[in-house]
């Protein structure tokens, strides 16, 4: 197996702290290095997951963290793939390790998110689909999540109460996580009483924008053994696939789907194909998972992931939730960390934070939110413009 070891995991608590993303990333990196039991000087490659500020994607990633930690001549890489940036940073680090370019790699992602809706950079840019969807349609991210949610209601009979149950579940888990921004229980009544953002989704159905940072120290299995980590958590698969033409579900930030006239819709669809690629590479299936961390940008989207990950058949996500299977203590806990519902979105950090959670769960050190006997976990999300993202880790 092409496995790499997770030697260390670290986070900066998420929230609206009003500080620089570099502070969050550096704090997370130091925590991951301490957790790995190695020094910054031992790191010969750093990969930063980029965010976009001031028009310089990547300026704020690998080099920014390497400078903050102290220039020491290490190999440096910056990757940007919107919400999949963290997974691509992990994938890059893994490829360096497996190819023998580097033995131990520091992966860092952090952000200081602006308040309110994410919006495109300024200027008149009608050749940019992300600019166009705001200018022509006023279509915010929650608007797309709401289109998916309403479609689920029509197709599968999901209800706003089902969506609220996701928030209640994730808030209960997040209350047990010291890194989460929101650490209080939420009731279904509170979700129902929150204002509608984009019908049928309410404020508490949609994740907030947050500051946060997350980091991992990855190494070759041989390096891990030399450093006394004989049986580390291992990353067994990283999926970063694109959709297959024609993409037939409206995807952020596009204004229309591909036409299915020239070629029939692919099976499986995009999100499902992200999971499938990860399962194939890891040589395991949904029945082998102890837990999953999925991108709950909206409560309704979490139900969709249940189906796309194969945790239940299509259309039965709400049933799986109602049965308690995906809650802590259930058959297959999803978002034991509390998910984005509890963290909020710090774009380049989130896919890395998901793997931090898997690491702690697979080590058995997740405290009150520990999934008993966790042996394998999967993360899933997708980045704007068609970036797949899933990671499988095992203990």
């Amino acid at each position: 197996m092409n496995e790499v070891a997770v030697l260390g995991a670290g986070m900066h608590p998420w929230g609206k702290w009003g500080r620089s993303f570099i502070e969050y990333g550096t704090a997370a990196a130091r925590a991951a290095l301490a957790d790995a039991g190695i020094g910054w000087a031992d790191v010969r490659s750093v990969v930063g997951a980029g965010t976009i500020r001031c028009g310089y994607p990547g300026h704020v990633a690998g080099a920014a963290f390497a400078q903050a930690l102290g220039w020491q001549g290490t190999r440096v890489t910056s990757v940007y793939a919107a919400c999949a940036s963290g997974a691509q940073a992990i994938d890059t680090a893994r490829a360096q390790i497996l190819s023998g370019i580097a033995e131990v790699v520091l992966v860092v992602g952090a952000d200081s998110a602006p308040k309110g809706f994410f919006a495109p950079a300024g200027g008149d840019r009608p050749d940019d689909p992300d600019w166009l969807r705001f200018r022509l349609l006023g279509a915010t991210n929650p608007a797309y999540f709401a289109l998916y949610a309403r479609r689920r209601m029509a197709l599968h009979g999901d209800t706003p109460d089902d969506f609220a149950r996701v928030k209640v579940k994730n808030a209960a888990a997040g209350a047990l996580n010291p890194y989460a921004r929101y650490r209080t229980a939420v009731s279904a009544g509170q979700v129902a009483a929150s204002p509608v953002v984009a019908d049928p989704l309410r404020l508490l159905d949609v994740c907030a924008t947050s500051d946060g940072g997350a980091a991992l120290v990855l190494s070759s299995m041989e390096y891990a053994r030399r450093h006394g980590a004989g049986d580390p958590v291992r990353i067994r698969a990283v999926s970063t696939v694109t959709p297959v033409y024609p993409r037939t579900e409206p995807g952020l930030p596009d204004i229309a789907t591909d036409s299915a006239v020239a070629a029939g819709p692919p099976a499986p669809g995009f999100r499902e194909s992200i999971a499938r690629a990860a399962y194939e590479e890891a040589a395991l299936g949904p029945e082998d998972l102890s837990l999953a961390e999925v991108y709950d940008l909206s409560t309704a989207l979490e139900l969709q992931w249940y189906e796309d990950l194969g945790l239940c058949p299509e259309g039965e996500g709400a049933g799986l939730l109602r049965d308690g299977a995906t809650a802590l203590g259930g058959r297959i806990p999803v978002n034991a960390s509390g998910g984005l519902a509890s963290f909020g979105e710090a774009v380049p950090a989130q896919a890395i934070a998901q793997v931090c959670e898997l690491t702690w769960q697979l080590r058995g050190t997740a405290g009150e939110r520990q999934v008993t006997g966790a042996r394998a976990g999967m993360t899933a999300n997708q980045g704007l413009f068609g970036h797949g993202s899933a990671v499988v880790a095992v203990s």
Partner: protein
Amino acid sequence: MVAGWFTKSDDEEGFRLLGTRCGACSAVFFPREDALCRNPACAGGVLTEVALSKRGRVWSYTDGRYRPPAPYVSDPESGWQPYTLLAVELAAERMVVLGQAVPGVTVADLSVGTEVEVVPGILSEDADTVWTTWQWRPVEEER
């Protein structure tokens, strides 16, 4: 702003979205794709302009209860009026096209499967310019 995305006609009956069609594989593109066919199985054909179906059925719908950020244009001095957003499935083109509903249509007026048609509308206007756009309007019951 989006040259060639829809007909210039203000006449509702003649108003259409404009896409392109590949001469080799017949794939349709909206927004228009004028450079290269994006079908990976296609060797590449000539892309010619084509008017899309006037009518389609609602794939899904929502609204915007909060004012979207720029570059969406709205008057910050006036109260926010939610707009309704539709994703509409065009049967002949086998694609889904997003668009705002005509003013006055709310989510309460819609369901998945509702038949709608494309009509010209006003996106925004200032002293010098009226920005036209496409909007979806529920089709009146025909008797």
